[in-house]
């Protein structure tokens, strides 16, 4: 049963320069206990969708429900069972301890002090916040502050948690720790995590399904592996020496869609990347290389979600963000 559903959801904003369509015809169904990724470049509509689902914003048309309650007309029914956190959030009273802040935010949900103590102890342990709970918020580093923010988002034992870029600007270890926490929460507590991000690695690491969004529209919605198999481009890479003068010997091989080469001058090695139509081309490539040069190493390169996006849209994230900003 879907816990989050949208049907032809749309949102338009009026500005001095005209109307901006932030979301258009969004149809989604997210199940209980799912880690659902919403992947797209900046300005794609991810935050707008999260704001609608978390009752901060009304849709212009269409509808959305959380646990069967309409987010536009029944926000009072939705709010007790959701929570949200954002990576750019600085929410917290600076001169109060992390524990004090979490206690205050727990009171917004009417949680008793006994239940609060149990929950904060578990969350603190899972997020490795022990030892920092009694520090004032201004004394916490960015990483620990974000861990506190994540703890806040789970303090009311929500059924659905909306996360908007939760690991942005965090170091690798902290980001990994948070991802592990989110994945465990979904698996063990059957909590639905709705994760908006433009971080491919994050999406591939923990999301059961991913919706790729661009210019307010959902392009596809499937598991990361399925998307990569269907829309990604597998590649074969080899390092050879001496670097080939021309790539024509490879380009003409049946099954090779494209070939590029980069040169490591210091080592005198060329890294040649092949975009393949089929796996049978690999053996032919190796034979062709062996006849003219020495093969140092080779490996398969899995398609990435960015390639999926490029294949669907025709542009990468960076180019799309520049277009949106322009």
């Amino acid at each position, binding site marked *: 049963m879907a816990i989050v559903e949208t049907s032809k959801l749309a949102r338009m904003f009026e500005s001095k320069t005209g109307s901006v369509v932030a979301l258009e015809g969004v149809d989604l169904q997210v199940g209980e206990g799912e880690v659902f990724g919403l992947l797209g470049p900046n300005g794609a509509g991810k935050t707008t969708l999260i704001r609608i689902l978390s009752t901060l914003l009304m849709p212009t048309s269409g509808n959305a429900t959380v646990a069967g309650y309409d987010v536009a007309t029944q926000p009072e029914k939705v709010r007790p069972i959701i929570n949200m956190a954002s990576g750019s959030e*600085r929410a917290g009273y600076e001169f109060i301890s992390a524990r004090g802040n979490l206690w205050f935010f727990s009171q917004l949900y009417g949680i008793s002090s006994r239940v609060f103590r149990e929950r904060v102890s578990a969350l603190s342990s899972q997020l490795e916040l022990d030892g920092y709970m009694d520090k004032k918020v201004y004394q916490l580093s960015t990483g620990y502050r974000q861990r506190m923010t994540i703890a806040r988002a789970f303090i009311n034992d929500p059924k659905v948690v909306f996360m908007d870029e939760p690991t942005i600007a965090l170091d690798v270890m902290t980001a990994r720790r948070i991802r592990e926490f989110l994945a465990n929460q979904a698996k063990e507590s059957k909590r639905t995590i709705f994760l908006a991000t433009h971080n491919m690695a994050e999406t591939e690491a923990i999301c059961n399904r991913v919706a790729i969004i661009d210019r307010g529209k959902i392009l596809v919605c499937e598991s990361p592996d399925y998307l990569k198999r269907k829309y990604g481009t597998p590649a074969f890479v080899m390092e050879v020496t001496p670097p080939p003068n021309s790539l024509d010997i490879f380009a003409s091989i049946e099954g090779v869609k494209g070939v590029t080469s980069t040169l490591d001058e210091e080592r005198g090695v060329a890294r040649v990347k092949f975009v393949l139509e089929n796996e049978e081309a690999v053996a032919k490539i190796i034979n062709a290389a062996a006849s003219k040069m020495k093969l140092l190493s080779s490996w398969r390169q899995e398609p990435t979600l960015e390639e999926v996006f490029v294949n669907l849209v025709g542009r990468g994230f960076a180019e799309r963000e520049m277009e949106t900003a322009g």
Partner: protein
Amino acid sequence: MYSRAWVRVQSTFGEPLWLAVNLAVPLLSSLAMALLYASAGISKYTGFAILGGIMLAFWGNVLWSMASQFNWDKEEGIFEIYLVSPAPITAILVGMSLGGILATVPSAALVALIGWVFFSASINPSWIAIFLTFILALASLYAMGMLMSSLYLAYGREAESLNSAFAEPINFLSGLYFPSIGIGSPFPFALQVAASLIPLTIGMDALRKSVFYAGNVAAVGVDLVILAVMAVVLLFLGDRALKALENRGRRQGTLVVRLR
């Protein structure tokens, strides 16, 4: 409600600079006025100045910590946490008010202590009337602060300019340091009527009667009723305004300041 009051108290006493400002502003203002009256030979008004300083502490808290708090919360991302939670916004504001009152008591007490020690103002109190007037004056002042906080939701940072623009005229009209209505008022009748629309004016007048002229409950009864009505009406209007502005913000997409 209780938790938001706790946050307000903790934050105020956790910020030494803010605490110092909270103590210094009403103290220096009232001492300046008291010295002015004393040097002009109007010693009976030095007590008025000290009483004004006590109420200025609370009025300043209403203006700068209550009314503009939501704008600061919006900029810090805390306001959207309030909205996404099931807690009523009005309850949060009431908690903020209670916390604000508690956090301001030290400033007010310091003004009272220093003022009375240095100027030896004579008082003729009716304590029950003082207590009731004080409670109802604060209730109506903070209810006004709740209504003003809805302006901040609507206009954001522009409302800070409104705050600055209105602070001094209200301080002047409300009679913080001299009677602005009734006996002793230098204002024409029409201006006195306008000044009477401000809860602080009614509160100050009733407090002067009960502190300096032994005005008992009967003597300030009309003022008490007016303050009670103001508190209820302003609380009602504040609640309505907040709900209307929240809905407008949800429709227009202006509830959250930060854009990503």
